[in-house]
């Protein structure tokens, strides 16, 4: 039973355009959400996060939106750059739990 779902395995966008990565979850007990970026042969690196008490968090070119009623979050990258090409993982955490539940990841390719 996959509690965190990234339904699109890949996305390709042109440099300078917006990248929108989507994530859905099923467990209403999740209260914190994170996005990680992973380059080949490296571990995931933390990108941005959002608490369930917010609906938006912005950090430079990266913005995460949370729609609790739809159990949906999205990561917007604008403008996209070739160096953003990587696999992006959505992760969620339940209140009182230390472990993260990850989606399967989405491969983003930003073309010059």
């Amino acid at each position, binding site marked *: 039973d996959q509690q965190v779902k*990234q339904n699109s395995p890949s996305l390709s966008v042109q440099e300078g355009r917006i990248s929108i990565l989507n994530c859905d979850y099923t467990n209403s007990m999740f209260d914190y959400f994170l996005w990680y970026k992973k380059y080949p042969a490296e*571990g995931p690196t933390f990108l941005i*996060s959002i608490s369930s008490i917010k609906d938006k968090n912005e950090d430079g070119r990266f913005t995460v939106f949370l729609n609790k009623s739809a159990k949906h979050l999205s990561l917007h990258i604008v403008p996209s750059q070739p160096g953003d090409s990587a696999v992006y993982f959505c992760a969620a955490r339940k209140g009182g739990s230390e*472990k993260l539940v*990850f989606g399967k*990841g989405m491969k983003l390719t930003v073309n010059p």
Partner: protein
Amino acid sequence: GAGVSQSPSNKVTEKGKDVELRCDPISGHTALYWYRQSLGQGLEFLIYFQGNSAPDKSGLPSDRFSAERTGGSVSTLTIQRTQQEDSAVYLCASSFQGAYEQYFGPGTRLTVT
């Protein structure tokens, strides 16, 4: 400063052999996590250590898997009698107590032939 380090980076072993994977967390991080990523899958939680508390072993897939954390720092994940389905990238992460962000090492790619 140094990040999370893991060794070996790659390990090829024969089915039925035991393997040990090592993780050195970031200095000062009291929480340590092991995850694994099988081909085409997301990261799957295995085990969590926090200070001197009993570890959360709820993600270990079978009793062939065990982990230790000595002196609150280095951790070793041991897989006994490896099976082909154990082939995956094993990732270690660490964090400060109560912090949401976990910092990952580069992983150990385990291949069981």
